[in-house]
């Protein structure tokens, strides 16, 4: 009776993922690498058509169906077909970008535009090191679709080109603009007469006050503790300047143990030591911890500007969430209190083997038009990377605070990209280190050691391509 069952069970249990990958890539290995995608469709370039779009070439767009949904993309597609009525657009939306598209990349027949985002995102290091992405440089130098006299490059917020560039080549257009900071409810703070502290000492004093009032000052996503690495690194960058982040991005030896990182880790250890973190936080995932925060059980949480839409369903009316920059360590900080981490997110890419590559670029140009960007902000209540696209739009409370904070941050804004270059370093290694640190099982020195060990592991792995941030 059983032998056959055993085999079947073995099949189901042991090689869960392998059959799928192997099968879908049936003739992958040993196939020829070139030309399997065929010639790219191109039209003649002109002033009206700077990217050389073939006007009747079909275009395929794959959208990540996550927090932003797919409606905004359908609107962009309608704008594209308005300009090229002869083109047909094949639209699809999925949450599993990775599993849906992997076989098509191998096959050499990828879609023309891919919104590579979400938990099922394809690791960019893998894509870039396998030359799977088209250079978007041409797009940057093309004139903007509806902002007269400007190139696309000049319509983008600072840092957008930086975050999408690998070894100087611009390969990934991140379309939404995200600010990372510390969130609190203005209602709670007004009711209690609390004031957000601009320095770390003030912050600690406030935490003491909040705890005395019977509310936990902090909570965080214990299942994804990397959320807490953001305020720690932010504080270090504000203390030591942009080079602190660059050293981390470039995997420089002992970058995680720089003086600035040490000072920041020591400072943050205070909230662990003094019991300012809500008990039980290490056992919560991001949604659970954010929900506790929305219920007023904790005062502060570290998150990006997607928080407001993610929590829309459970946020009580009048909660008024607001983002603030990480407190400054002291007067010796190189960047002012207002400086905060802002970065482009929600990546879009045009595969190198896309049939209608010019059309893909043109689609991105449509998204980056003033009309496209305004429509996006209106539809999904999020910022786009196009300068000035929020003007006149009515934004929810949290997003309004994001716009204000980013304005104040201005040219002092900073960012790091090691999480794009080396996904595993943030998602697995720094993540685990943060979990140990913020649940009080390691000291600041041990925490930084563990992060550094992770970075060294990536640096020493010859199968991972390394990039240098300029």
């Amino acid at each position: 009776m059983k032998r056959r069952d055993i085999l079947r069970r073995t099949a189901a249990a042991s090689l869960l993922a392998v059959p799928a990958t192997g099968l879908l890539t049936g003739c992958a290995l040993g196939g020829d690498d070139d030309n399997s995608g065929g010639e790219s469709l191109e039209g003649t370039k002109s002033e009206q058509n700077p990217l050389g779009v073939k006007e009747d070439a079909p275009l395929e767009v794959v959208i990540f169906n996550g927090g932003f949904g797919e409606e905004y993309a359908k609107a962009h597609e309608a704008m594209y077909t308005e300009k090229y009525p002869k083109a047909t657009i094949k639209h699809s939306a999925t949450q599993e970008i990775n599993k849906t598209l992997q076989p098509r990349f191998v096959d050499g027949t990828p879609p023309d535009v891919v919104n590579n985002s979400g938990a099922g995102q394809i690791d960019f290091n893998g894509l870039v090191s396998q030359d799977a992405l088209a250079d978007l440089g041409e797009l940057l130098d093309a004139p903007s679709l509806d902002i007269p006299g400007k190139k696309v490059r000049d319509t983008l917020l600072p840092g957008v080109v930086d975050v999408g560039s690998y070894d100087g080549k611009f390969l990934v257009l991140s379309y939404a603009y995200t600010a990372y900071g510390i969130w609190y409810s203005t209602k709670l703070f007004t009711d209690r007469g609390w004031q957000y502290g601009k320095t770390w000492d003030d912050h600690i004093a406030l935490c003491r006050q909040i705890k005395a009032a019977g509310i936990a000052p902090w909570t965080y996503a214990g299942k994804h503790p990397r959320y807490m690495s953001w305020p720690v690194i932010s504080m270090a960058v504000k203390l030591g300047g942009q080079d602190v982040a660059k050293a981390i991005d470039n995997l420089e030896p002992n970058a995680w143990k720089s003086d600035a990182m040490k000072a920041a880790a020591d400072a943050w250890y205070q909230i662990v030591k003094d019991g300012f973190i809500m008990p039980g936080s290490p056992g919560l995932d991001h949604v659970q911890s954010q929900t506790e925060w929305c219920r007023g059980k904790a005062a502060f949480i570290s998150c990006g500007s997607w928080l407001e839409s993610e929590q829309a369903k459970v946020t009580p009316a009048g909660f008024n969430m607001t983002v603030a920059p990480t407190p400054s360590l002291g007067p010796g900080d190189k960047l002012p209190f207002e400086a905060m981490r802002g970065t482009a997110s929600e990546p879009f890419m045009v595969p190198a083997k896309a049939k209608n590559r010019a059309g893909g670029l043109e689609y991105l140009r449509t998204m980056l038009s003033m009309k496209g960007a305004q429509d996006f902000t209106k539809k999904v209540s999020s910022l786009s990377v196009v300068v000035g696209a929020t003007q006149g739009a009515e934004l929810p409370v949290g997003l309004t605070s994001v716009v204000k904070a980013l304005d104040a941050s201005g040219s002092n804004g900073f960012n790091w990209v090691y999480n794009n270059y080396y996904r595993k370093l943030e998602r697995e290694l720094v993540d685990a280190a943060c979990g140990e640190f913020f649940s009080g099982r390691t000291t600041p020195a041990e925490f930084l050691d563990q992060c550094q060990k992770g970075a060294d592991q990536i640096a020493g792995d010859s199968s991972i391509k390394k990039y240098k941030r300029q």
Partner: protein
Amino acid sequence: MKHGKYPLIITFLVPPLLLYGIFVLSPYLQAFQISTTNWLGYSASADYVGLENFGNLLRDGALWNAVRNNAILLVLLPVLTIGLGLFFASMLNMGGRRGTAGVVGVRGSGAYKLVYFFPQVLSVVIIALLWKEVYHPNNGLLNATLRGIGLPAPTWLGDPRTAFWAVLAVMIWSNVGFYVVLFGAAMQAIPKDIYEAVMLDGASRWTTLTRVTIPLLWDTVQVAWIYLAIAALDGFILIQQMTDGGPNHSSDVIGLRMYNTAFGSETKFGYASAIGVVMFFLTLSVAVLALRASRRDRIEYS
């Protein structure tokens, strides 16, 4: 009639065998091939690297950590699940001592049977989500109960000392119902007169269970052992949903390592395939060993 036999057999056998060959066997074979390359998954090119991936496996601390956890599962999951399953099944089928005939279950055994089977009808993902809320450190059912009776309330899934055991408990909970039914069915097949004779001799419930029931159920226990051993080498879905291997890799399993290497934080399909191949042989040897070790003479009821 007789000469028509082979066309009939072939018509019925070829399509399933073909499907099995294409969708099960050929991917297996390709996984073996891919495991000897450095394929990164998003281009058609990959270099042959021989056994380098397997060499790296040996030095991969994160993988060994996962193997260790699977080994613990391999020991504890079958023992605890089968133990509990046998206990419940015997209570439900022959635990009652009312009347003289004796061979009946405890009072209300029908309702219990139904309740035990509940987890089996839920999908694993639902079970994971359900228990994630039960283990919720502040609002969860478990900690609320513990606080209610004045006991300390640990952060079950957020503490490396408890996370793995908390998931193990869920694995047992979700498996036990099926084995209660399986063992129960097998017990029904044991002739009643054996039990009547045992009871006339004045045997206790424990003696009945260990000296009579279990030896007579040995075939079924053996099957259960193999199923559970294979499940213990997997454990992927529950772990991924409930802890994602954390905190600090304390609840990592091989399946999760493989998934994260290919689809998660990296795209090393060659290396992930090597992990898959290792898992294949591990599972196969465990199944074979379990069969060998538990081989006994079969008892036929005449």
